[in-house]
């Protein structure tokens, strides 16, 4: 009986030690980096293939769940809202042939595409919305990416409580995907401030944090290593995978 007690105690101690050992390993930089190696494998194997499922009108969530950082509350954004985004310009610069700024009216005048797709948050929940806007590939075709452009970086107007702004990045392969959208409308209405007005990104083949809201500038770059903390996005800088297809 003593032997059984010993075995039972050993097993329960081993189980109880798992979480502390895991937490200790988690704080080890080399181990932490090794864990991240799966991302490269997943990116190589899954990548950006196929098309996200498109739904019917009846599937749409009329009350689309608001996600991400708080809606910008600074005076500049308030002014934009008050003036119905008339002064807004979507800046495009970096490795492009034609740098410039696009007004909302100019974006609305471009070829519009509608998709009803599911937004999958990294937290686990999903919501379906109807998005209308300009395909990012059409927009990029209009400005002409230079051969040295590898990534599109999206700068946003929202900031966290440390005043760190949101940003995101996509490789050009994902940027050129036919379902990657510069969305101007949600559920048949212009985007409201809580959902990223006036322009947000929609990337239905990756997790929700890639679909940056309140985009004001797109920069094409060869590398994002020198932008903010260098991981390619606000959440990526905090440890989330840059490749969010899984």
């Amino acid at each position, binding site marked *: 009986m003593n032997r*059984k007690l010993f*075995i*039972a105690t050993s*097993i329960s101690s081993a189980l*109880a030690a*798992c*979480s*502390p050992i*895991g*937490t200790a390993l*988690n704080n080890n930089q080399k181990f*932490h980096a*090794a*864990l*991240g*190696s*799966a*991302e490269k*494998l*997943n990116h190589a194997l*899954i*990548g*950006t*293939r*196929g*098309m*996200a*499922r498109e739904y019917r009108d009846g*599937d749409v*969530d009329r009350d689309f*769940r608001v996600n991400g950082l708080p809606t910008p509350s600074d005076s500049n954004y308030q002014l934009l809202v008050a003036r119905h985004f008339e002064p807004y310009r979507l800046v495009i610069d970096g490795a492009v042939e034609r740098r410039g700024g696009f007004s909302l009216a100019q974006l609305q005048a471009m070829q519009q595409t509608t998709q009803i797709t*599911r937004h*999958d*948050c*990294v*937290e*686990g*929940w*999903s*919501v*379906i919305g109807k998005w209308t806007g300009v395909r990012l590939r059409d927009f990029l075709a209009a400005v002409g990416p230079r051969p040295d452009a590898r990534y599109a970086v999206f700068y946003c107007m929202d900031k966290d409580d440390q005043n760190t702004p949101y940003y995101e990045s996509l490789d050009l392969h994902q940027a050129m995907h036919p379902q990657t959208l510069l969305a101007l409308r949600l559920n048949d209405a212009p985007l409201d401030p809580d959902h990223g007005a006036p322009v947000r990104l929609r990337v*239905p*083949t*990756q*997790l929700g944090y890639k679909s940056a809201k309140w985009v004001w500038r797109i920069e094409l770059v060869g590398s994002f290593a020198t932008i903010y903390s260098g991981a390619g996005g606000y*959440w990526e800088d*905090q*440890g*989330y*995978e840059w490749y*969010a*297809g*899984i």
Partner: protein
Amino acid sequence: MQMGRKIYRYAVTTRLSHWFWVIAFGVLVSSGLQIFNAAPYLDASDKSDPARRVLSINSPAQGVGTTTIFGRTFTTTGWLGYTDDGMGGRGPRGFPGWITIPSFQDLADGRRWHLFFAWIAAACWIAWLISTAIKGNLRELILRPSDVPKLWPMQAYYLHLRKEPPPHGIYNPLQKAAYTTVGFVVAPLVVLTGLALSPGIDAIAQPLTWLLGGRQFARLWHFAGMLALLAFFVIHTFQVLTQGFVNQMNSMITGWYRVGSEDVAGQ
């Protein structure tokens, strides 16, 4: 202790993959619960739908934890909903910090662990499958129609309703049934339901997520598969503990199993 004949039962690939699998499974469960905690509910639907919520873990008031299963709510303070926050205190949280990796709430790192050890688990399974198939031992392991009539006699033997186990090969019929179900039904389903959660894979293989009832449903299946594997783990551990623990552990470490000694286990 009776001295039985020793047989070489487990090849080195089987033993290695077994122990790697133990580690990987432990990490996958605890990092999976960490990921679950970010949205501590499960819906039988494609998009999130509170009307089709099967399980939710909540903290409706400060210091109170509740778990709702199929519409029935239980108070689970201290265990689920309001529990160990992994930082020495208590707080609103799905599963407690002592069972998650990392212990504190950290979805990003939970995902890192989970997506890395998913590869370890898959690699173990494939390595074991290939080596076992090459050696021809799969035939010893997979349940055949001729084993089905022997299932109850074997169970009766375990329940001490019968003196002798029914005649069988290296594995008895119950072991075969368990290993076949876990290794070739549940484990692959857990992998598939996990893959269905990936928006990138959903875009490549839309029918997979659709067949599972949608993305949230896939999340529910993935969780249910984890529970099934956990149930196997508990029964398996119990069996090992009660059916000649030392002999069983020896055989999974050295490969050599003493035949017949389970009859005198614990004596």
